[in-house]
């Protein structure tokens, strides 16, 4: 009897700390700074969804000059949030990235133009204009769009002049560019907050132009998927993350507060984050995390139709897998 009690106590003593250590460590590299664009992951972290799945997740914010693909290649993260064009381009460059889940169903990318620049139809009005574009892997959707329009990005009267846009909307406010790249949930509102009204602006959503590409998917390296333990951990990660996303969709205010608590820079405001959370909810709606193959094909088609300078030169193979989401959701 005493022996059994002793054994139970010893067992409890061993199991106690062991429970804490049994968690799988995962590092997630975000595509951009801490903001409601990544609310689902922060919610999953704060609400203990990762804990419940036995995961110890580290969320690393990105920034203007952080390319998540490079962080992954360098071993600085297990899984990254990346846009599909950059991921497929990296894959063609020899970095075997695989899409394991797609929390964002729709694209939030658009070009926001000043009405006074006289642009109303992308087919005819862009030539000779200056457009602001993000780089570090975010230029691919834009380059695809321009080549479908048959416009050179080298400037001149028949092409467009491209500016490397920083992390703010000043080029538009300063009228240094006729249009700048914006996300429906972020930069567009920064322009509005700067004092311009929606009537001063013309917006062209990539999805309306038929050149939308998949954004904010979860990617990992091919080699990670060959390890059964990591596959299991990733499946639990995706399940918890999607739970976080659905929670954020239903509670945008709370999600914004959680994001704000996690923002170490203190640069974000609650108004902007709440608005962002509700805009992002529109993009995550309709996705349970599983990549829709039709969306994937549309992205690949857009990237391949790059005229003289396509983003990817051949049809990618094995660039996505349903293994993780199938296991996570069933």
């Amino acid at each position: 009897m005493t022996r059994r009690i002793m054994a139970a106590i010893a067992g409890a003593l061993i199991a106690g700390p062991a429970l804490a250590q049994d968690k799988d460590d995962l590092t997630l590299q975000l595509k951009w700074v801490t903001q409601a664009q990544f609310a689902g992951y922060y919610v999953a972290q704060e609400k203990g969804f990762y804990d419940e799945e036995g995961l110890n997740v580290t969320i690393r914010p990105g920034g203007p000059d952080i390319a998540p693909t490079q962080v992954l290649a360098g071993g600085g993260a297990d899984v990254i949030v990346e846009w599909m064009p950059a991921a497929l381009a990296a894959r063609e460059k020899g970095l075997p990235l695989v899409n394991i889940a797609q929390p964002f169903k729709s694209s939030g990318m658009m070009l926001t133009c000043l009405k006074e620049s006289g642009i109303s139809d992308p087919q005819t009005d862009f030539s000779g204009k200056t457009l602001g574009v993000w780089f570090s892997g975010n230029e691919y959707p834009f380059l695809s769009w321009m080549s479908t329009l048959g416009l050179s990005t080298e400037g001149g009267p028949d092409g467009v002049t491209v500016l490397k846009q920083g992390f703010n909307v000043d080029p538009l406010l300063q009228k240094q560019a006729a249009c700048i790249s914006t996300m429906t949930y972020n930069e567009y509102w920064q322009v509005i907050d700067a004092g311009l009204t929606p009537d001063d602006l013309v917006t062209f959503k990539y999805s309306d132009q038929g050149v939308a590409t998949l954004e904010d998917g979860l990617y990992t390296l091919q080699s990670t998927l060959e390890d059964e333990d990591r596959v299991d951990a990733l499946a639990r990660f995706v399940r918890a993350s999607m739970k976080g996303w659905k929670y954020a969709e239903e509670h945008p205010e709370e999600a914004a507060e959680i994001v704000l608590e996690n923002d170490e820079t203190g640069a974000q405001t609650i108004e902007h984050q709440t608005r962002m959370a509700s805009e992002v909810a529109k993009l995550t709606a309709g996705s349970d995390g599983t990549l829709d193959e039709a969306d994937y094909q549309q992205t690949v088609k857009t990237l391949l139709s790059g005229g003289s300078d396509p983003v990817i030169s051949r049809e990618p193979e094995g660039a996505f897998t349903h293994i993780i989401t199938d296991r996570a959701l069933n």
Partner: protein
Amino acid sequence: MTGALAGTLPILAVWAGGWALNAWLARFDTRLTRILVAAIFGITVIVLWEMIVRIYRVPTVILPAPGQIAASFAANTAILWTDFVQTIVKGALTGWLIGAAAAILTAIAIDRSPFLQRGLLPIGNFVAALPIVGIAPILVMWFGFDWQSKAAVVVVMVFFPILVNMVAGLAATDAMQRDLMATWAAPYGASLWKLRLPAAMPFLFNGLKITTTLALIGAIVAEFFGSPTHGMGFRISTAVGRLDLPLVWAEILVAAIAGTLFYGLVALIEKKVTFWHPSQRA
């Protein structure tokens, strides 16, 4: 473990071989061996780099091999040349010349008037302390995205070191020399032109040499904050996003070569101008 060890042996062998060869060469102190020793050291470093990257299979994204960098350099000469002209010639060189001219004129004005000396030097000091990452975005907003804003950043960066050196240079003559000019009834201009400017030259060139590399760094970093789609800073920051690291290193190589040549050129002019100075006696 044995694999890692097997890879380490040839690396150690090359390193020890280079060392031994140089140690042996160093016994003969002629002009040729001095050049040889330096060349062998450089070649050994590059060979070791290539070997380490290949043997330990370091991913290209972390560190490309010198061979890959050379191949990228050869394949992208057109891009590298466009970037060089945009960043070094238009941005750095223009900014450096404007900044140097402004600093020299300001130094003479400060030298002429004690009032300016008390007012301008602290302001110059203040400008020198501004961090480049803080002023670059502002100057991009003021002067646009093209090379003009990069030149403006360079002006701000090079102005103060040249100013301080020039002010010190203009004070470098001693009282005896100045008294001599006064006994000949030389006006301010004549004494400046014939005595004090030549005496200030070693100081001025000191400032000019220091700022050659500052100008390059300023022009490249300023391009991170908004640029047209060419330029070395643009390429370095965007090629990383495209995982084209050999191109990034090729740009770094161009910057290193350009910086060395720029410095060398200024040092050469200095030799011609200040041949009379004790430091130039070989």
